[in-house]
């Protein structure tokens, strides 16, 4: 998987969550491309929220307004819809969102003990963000990795089974940048972008697409 466009580099290089702002010019183009994927543009609402989080780390007010205007709904519908979903944050979150699963399988493997250790190590309770905006801690429902219980996610990337020692190491690695290739900034869901659209189906079109920025093999 190679992703060599400037836009993605910029997203991946983001060190801190932003304090606000709308889509970048490039982000706006991607938002429009997302809408073009669906028969009804409102379907792109949630992907666009992810896109906004990829740019800012959270769903900013400006992006809410822009998404609303793009899909033709009210800002209240965008924020109301987004707030239904656990992954979408309407307030700034830390650079790393750590989600510790405590659901049944992880609990039976010591998830609450892990959570306590994590809280102690980070100095914040679950639901909180540290004051440097480095970490946000969440107690998560089953993350779907119960064979590695107790497990946790950092920015939606899996780690498990974990204990307090391996968590300490995880924090050290995050700080040193050793995990930069594994854990992108919060909000970046996929480092690979779709390069096809409804109008560029099939092999011939793909060949043409290849010469553009996001071409990949």
């Amino acid at each position, binding site marked *: 998987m190679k992703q060599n466009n400037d836009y993605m580099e910029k997203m991946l290089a983001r060190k801190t969550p932003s304090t606000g702002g709308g889509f970048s010019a490039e982000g706006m183009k991607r938002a429009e491309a997302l809408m073009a994927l669906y028969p*009804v543009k*409102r*379907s792109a609402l949630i992907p666009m929220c992810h896109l906004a989080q990829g740019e800012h780390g959270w769903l900013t007010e400006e992006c809410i307004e822009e998404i609303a205007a793009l*899909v033709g709904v009210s800002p209240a519908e965008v924020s109301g819809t987004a707030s*239904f979903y656990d992954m979408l944050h309407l307030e700034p979150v830390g650079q790393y969102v750590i989600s510790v699963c405590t659901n049944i399988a992880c609990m039976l493997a010591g998830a*609450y003990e892990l959570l306590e250790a994590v809280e102690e190590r980070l100095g914040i309770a679950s639901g909180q963000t540290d004051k440097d905006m480095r970490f946000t801690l969440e107690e998560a429902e089953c993350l*779907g990795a119960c064979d590695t219980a107790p497990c946790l996610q950092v920015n939606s990337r899996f780690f498990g089974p974990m204990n307090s020692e391996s968590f300490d190491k995880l924090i050290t690695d995050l700080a040193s940048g050793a995990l930069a290739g594994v854990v992108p900034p919060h909000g970046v869901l996929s480092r690979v972008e779709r390069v096809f659209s409804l109008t560029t189906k*099939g092999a011939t079109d793909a060949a043409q697409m290849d010469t553009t920025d996001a071409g990949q093999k």
Partner: protein
Amino acid sequence: MRGKNNMLNEPIVTKRMGFEDSYTLERYLATGGYEGLRKALSMTREQVKEEVNKASLLGRGGAGFPAGRKWSMLRQAPTSYLVINGDESEPATFKDHLLVERDPHQLIEGTMIAAYALGVSQAFIFTRGEFALGIERLTAACNEAYEYNAVGKNIFGSDFSVDLVIHPGAGAYICGEETSLIESLEGNRGFPRIKPPFFPAVTGLYGEPTVVNNVETMSNLPWIVLNGGDAFAALGQGSSAGTRLFALSGRVNRPGWYELEMSKTTFRDLIYDKDLGGGIIGDKKIKAFIPGGVSAPWFFEEHLDMGLDQDAVAKAGSMLGSGSVVVMDETTCVVRASWRITRFFHRESCGQCTPCREGSGWLEKIMRRIEEGSGRPEDLDLLMDVCDSIAPGVTWPPQQTTICVLGPSIPSSIASAIRHLRDEFLEHIKLGHCPYEKDHILTGAAR
């Protein structure tokens, strides 16, 4: 992810799991990839459907509805859609996660086969948002598949074209429910749709007929097309045909995924066989196990020798559901276990129906109070009564006062625990803490 499939002569959905690069097109093609789709395209739509019918492929998403039957219900209309349900969030379930992350091409191939059989030109794979790596690999695979012409215009030179969109979810269990998933895919909050209409196959995405199928269901299709429905049906037994991916977790030595022939393997095999679950940690005794995700009523020691068979499990009052088995040993606190499951439903209730929205919260609060030592004996009746407000009679299969079946899933764990382990509950209440506290290796406080 840990798992095994060597109980089988030939694994169906997990055959590439041994390869580090199982998710690449290169590996996929090297291991027979897209041959099923090529073959399907050489058949008529009816022929493909017929093979799926013969295979008796039960939906792997939880409800276990035969895929062939569902397909035949698709209302004829100028536009219809295929939506693949990869929202897998049922606690202790991690099979779709595996299939999306480790064999995305197989999923895409299956999806294309289904799209062809159904005559659908627009398909979506709704993937749980938390599976970021899976989404990444699936997106890459989708790009590759377009380039390889396995997706897109005139697939493999045929006159069949289809567009595929990988749609990321954003974190809500309820979006696994198919009508909620459709709402979410339309850009709305994930409120399940009220019935009637009863099936998306009549009115689904954008009001058009829509087939919603699970990731694992799709992943079986390339094999079925290549080997024939009969070959699939020859595995397993009766309606529980083929193999299934079981997700084993909890207090076992070897948690992980296991692709097993249905019916022929028993729960005891799964949990205790040295090549599978490997028995219970510390050789403790089993107290209870969940046979198919936390929505399912619990099973106990007496059920261990039952086959992994949809009908048998249903007859015994539970369900094979999402194929995830959670084992609780003799030291597990049933109050705490059922509290944690209740808490999950409370957090994940979408909020539409009063009984589910409020009932889940009330149950959670009572359970927590008992767990924390302030329980009253009469709470057990109260718990059952609140359960009754959500699922009248607390029966199986459940009746419901709610729109979707998340509601009546809430009582499953509570009713199982109270009905079968009432004494332990009472003991917990009397002591003000778990009677097995000293046996816990783990002591963390509930919250």
